[in-house]
């Protein structure tokens, strides 16, 4: 067990204890505020400002205070955490605006499209107006599956929503898949989700289109964070510090 000796480590220790406590307070405050108000808060410049502070403080701490590094597992976990924060910000409206500026304004971040059964569609309604995907989405079929009612004549609960989706590029079919809840279709940098349907006549479905920007970084971050946690706490923590056969 390492014991802090240097005075600078002491300052760092108090600083980071305070920082973690502050983060806990902010997150708890966020839980009371509700998801809409908190996500609204992250629409503007604060979406870059606060994550940047977070990354700078933690990253700076690792550079300046040796004791914070907690071995290679800790570093792997930290890199994972930074990647998650960066990927998250890249996927936010702020990241989107940055990409818009560099791509000439053709980037779709999130939007909805209405696709009629048997028809192909590429227009997406976004908060910035109507935009077009570089390919078409065709709905071959849509159906709702129900559970058997508990009692004869009782209410039937929905089991699944299924859309038979085909992606067309230059008029040619390049992908055909069943779109289900929890199983979005991924194509051309976008995820497609079912967002609604024509309940009266069953003629169309509403698809939610979400850009996958930043997702690769986040997933890599997830992997590193988990690897770091296992390394730091199961291997280093349990096996070396006070674990099996240590006699502690």
């Amino acid at each position, binding site marked *: 067990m390492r*014991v802090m000796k240097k005075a600078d480590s002491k300052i760092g220790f108090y600083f980071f*204890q305070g920082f973690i*406590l502050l983060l806990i307070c902010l997150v708890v405050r966020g839980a009371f505020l509700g998801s809409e108000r908190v996500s609204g808060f992250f629409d503007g410049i604060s979406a870059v400002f606060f994550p940047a502070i977070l990354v700078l403080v933690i990253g700076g701490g690792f550079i300046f205070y040796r*004791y914070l590094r907690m071995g290679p597992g800790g570093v792997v976990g930290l890199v994972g955490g930074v990647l998650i924060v960066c990927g998250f910000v890249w996927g936010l409206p702020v990241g989107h605006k940055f990409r818009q500026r560099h791509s000439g304004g053709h980037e779709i971040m999130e939007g909805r499209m209405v696709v009629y059964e048997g028809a192909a569609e590429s227009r997406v309604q976004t908060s910035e107006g109507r935009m077009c995907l570089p390919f078409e989405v065709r709905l071959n079929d849509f159906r709702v599956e129900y559970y058997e009612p508990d009692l004869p004549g009782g209410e039937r609960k929905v089991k699944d929503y299924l859309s038979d989706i085909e992606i067309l590029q230059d008029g040619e079919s390049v992908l055909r898949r069943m779109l289900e*809840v929890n199983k979005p279709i991924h194509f051309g940098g976008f995820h497609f989700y079912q967002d609604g349907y024509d309940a009266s006549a069953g003629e169309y479905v509403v698809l939610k289109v979400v850009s996958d920007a930043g997702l690769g970084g986040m997933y890599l971050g997830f992997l590193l964070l*988990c690897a770091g946690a296992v390394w730091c*706490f199961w291997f280093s923590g349990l096996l070396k510090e*006070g674990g099996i056969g240590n006699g502690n």
Partner: protein
Amino acid sequence: MVIKYSVQGFLIYLAMVFYLLGFLVSMLKFRRFAILAGTAGFVAAFGSAVYRWTDAGHVPLGNLFEVFIFLGMVVWPIYFLCERVFGIKILAGDYLVGAMILFPAGFVFSGEPLHLPPVLQSWLFIPHVGMYMGGYVLLAKAGYYVFGRFFEFQGYTKSDLANDERACYKLACLGFPFLSFGLVLGSIWARDAWGRCWGWDPKEMWSLATWLVYMGYFHFRYGTGGRFPGWNYVWLVFGFVFVLITLLWANLSSLFAGLHSYA
């Protein structure tokens, strides 16, 4: 409070009786009998979970009733393995925890079978909830460990406290990665279901706060080198309270209506 006059209810009550018996026998220092009673409690809780699975037709983790049956089932093997593998003692309190976990399933929540809504039908369902449950069981034990030991014998010394603190640290080390996996798997599932990894939902926020509390604990313990076992323990009790809030309050209180309200 509702008493369940069904096979499901009978199995839950049987498990509770065995766990309570284990607690009493453990307090009287009959360790072997206590372990037998704990095993019997586990078998009854396991039977209850299997019964629920066949009855409802899905893995019994879909609402709080099912989650508590599941917790009542996993609590015993986890604590048993902790002792065998890591030398973290089984306490009388562990049996009591088993009975207390099953109490809401037995008397509070409705046991009516439910059809799983489409959003809960995912391969991530079992790993996400299972990881959290495993983590919570371990971290909860870290939270009450010292109290449990304190009531078990008189003349509790400073060195006992230091030894117990080390056992608590091992429990936290074991449980914390499970919290991380649960958080990450939840994010991946949220992306698949709702189109974003993080939605600032109250349950998500509380689980992140819990994760941060344990980060705070590890940071404190690492920074002070284990010189303040009492303060380390304060962090763990703090974490225990957050686990309870995340597991229960975030679901039951109307203050935190959100996307995780399946109970």
